């Protein structure tokens, strides 16, 4: 029995893939409970079974931050769930709410004006950078590399500052609404964004030297937690974790939303599939997001201002609202939005968050509330990777693998 489970040295494609039976135990195998109060600040528990100090089985015990998003989404109307779903990953707020808004837009048959689309992309990319930097910071804590924690947390503040100037909140922007966005860019924003982009470009070079090419870090990450391409595809893991394994998949290319098909950027794919490749993907993505921000900001600066909400909303605006939109760039909401109805139908909205693809399945029965909102977040899909990436490694590789998967429990538990 135990011989079946003990596969040391990671999973390889030629071993074939099968479900790891969790409850099988050998007599000489010990169980270690890690979490939910543990140094890595992940609010989850991993139960590992170790033979000596080699992990034989891992059983992610999640659900410590399950806040019943799907149920609450069914009773709060159509616009109130936007701040609600945002709380799944507050440091990636626009990315995580935009697919829901797009699903609702699909059902309603409205479309955001072009300027609003650019604004959404702008905030999405700012959030993506901030989310990756947050991931690095936590990764630094996991690896005991506190310089990385301090650097990434500090540089993340630059992008949080940008987002704050744009939306009025540090993290929880609640920015997109069905048919538009809530704020236009303030005065002086383009220059600020350009300065931030320039700053971050320089910093990325230093990141490479102090973190990615640091021999100590490399020796802890290289060939650790290898997820081969076929395994990644069968497990359905998403985002940088999949792209680190050679999966050529990014929702921004597969189903280009907003204005992503008009922008010039590259989706980095690495083929190694180890912890280092996943980290490299994130660094490259930051670099590409900086490029996108530059392009979007230039577009926003060049083009004249236009209403940032859909025509159907704008024509119902009283004069006061129009004046506020012009003078402050603040799109007001209308009272009927709290109790609006959405035509019956079913739609899937998806987008690429910092951690990967998020899917909202929204079903409407024509009423004031969604009939069913099913959310599949990237971390929820990545959770299964723990089960397959950990066995065969030493216990001390667990922090490296955990950190490289960039798992965020509130997002996974919903």
């Amino acid at each position: 029995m135990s011989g079946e489970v003990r596969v040391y040295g990671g999973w390889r494609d030629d071993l074939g893939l099968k479900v790891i039976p969790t409850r099988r135990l050998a007599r000489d195998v010990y169980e270690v409970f890690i979490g939910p109060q543990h140094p890595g600040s992940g609010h989850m528990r991993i139960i590992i079974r170790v033979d000596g100090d080699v992990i034989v089985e891992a059983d992610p015990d999640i659900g410590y931050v399950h806040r019943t998003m799907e149920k609450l989404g069914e009773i709060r109307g159509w616009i109130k769930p936007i701040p609600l779903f945002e709380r799944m990953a507050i440091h990636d707020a626009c990315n995580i709410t935009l697919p829901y808004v797009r699903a609702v837009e699909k059902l309603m048959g409205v479309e955001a004006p072009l300027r609003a689309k650019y604004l959404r992309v702008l905030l999405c990319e700012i959030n993506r950078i901030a989310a990756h930097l947050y991931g690095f910071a936590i990764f630094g804590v996991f690896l005991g590399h506190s310089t990385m924690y301090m650097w990434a947390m500090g540089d993340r503040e630059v992008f949080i500052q940008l987002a704050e100037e744009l939306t009025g909140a540090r993290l929880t922007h609640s920015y997109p609404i069905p048919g538009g966005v809530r704020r236009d860019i303030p005065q002086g924003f383009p220059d600020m964004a350009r300065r931030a982009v320039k700053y971050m470009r320089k910093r990325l070079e230093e990141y490479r030297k102090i973190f990615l090419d640091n021999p100590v870090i490399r020796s802890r990450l290289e060939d650790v937690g290898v997820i081969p391409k076929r395994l990644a595809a069968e497990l359905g893991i998403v985002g940088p974790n999949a792209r680190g394994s050679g999966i050529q998949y990014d929702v921004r290319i597969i189903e280009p939303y907003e204005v992503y098909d008009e922008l010039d950027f590259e989706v980095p794919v690495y083929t190694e599939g180890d912890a280092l490749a996943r980290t490299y993907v994130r660094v490259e993505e930051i670099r590409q997001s900086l490029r996108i921000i530059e392009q979007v900001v230039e577009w926003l600066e060049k083009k004249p201002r236009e209403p940032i909400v859909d025509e159907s909303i704008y024509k119902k605006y009283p004069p006061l609202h129009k004046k506020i939109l012009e003078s402050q760039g603040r799109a007001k909401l209308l009272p009927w939005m709290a109790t609006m109805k959405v035509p019956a139908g079913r739609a899937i909205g998806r987008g690429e968050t910092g951690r990967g693809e998020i899917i909202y399945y929204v079903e409407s029965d024509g009423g004031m509330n969604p009939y069913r909102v099913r959310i599949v977040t990237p971390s929820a899909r990545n959770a299964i990777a723990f089960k397959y990436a950990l066995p065969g490694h030493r216990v001390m590789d667990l922090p490296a693998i955990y950190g490289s998967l960039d798992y965020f429990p509130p997002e996974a538990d919903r």
Partner: protein
Amino acid sequence: MEEGKVYVGNLDVAAKRARDILLGKLKLEKVVDWANAFSLWPVHLTTSCCSTEFAATFGPRFDGEQFGALPWVGPRQTNLIVIEGTVTRKMACAVRVTWEQMPHPKYAIAMGACALDGGLFYNSYNVVRPWEVIPIDIYIPGCPPRPESVARAIVELQRKIRGRRVASSWIREGWRPDRDYVAPKEDYCAWQKTSPLLERV
């Protein structure tokens, strides 16, 4: 000392003697409170998504260490618990267990709307109010609160400790005179005892 129990060193007696000297003979209440206020060690327990802002508080821009507070891993070496957001039914057990492991005198800060009255999740079936689980000293509104708010909470807590002589009276009396000890309403760990998760083969 109780019969039949093994102690390594006589810690209880030593602690009592230290207390008698510090507070009884030398009357160093002020020193005790001052020292306690500037050595708040938050435990590394993240209950929910406010942890992103908590991490930012101890990052370079807001630098929580300037208040003498540094998050630490083991609950046995900490005396402050910051409830970072929602406490779910599954997490309540961990909160309570961590709180009980921390040495006296200890303090608690509730951070964010979810930790006060559930916030967005006020009617969720899986959310408990943290003040039902452990006694709270300072409440921070916001969702999530800004790092300055967390810093402000730490400053206010320090003032409270020094102004109301919280630490010294706690050490002397063995309990907090300004706050009733909150016993948890229910046994939040009950589910673990019956959980199929722990089923043995």
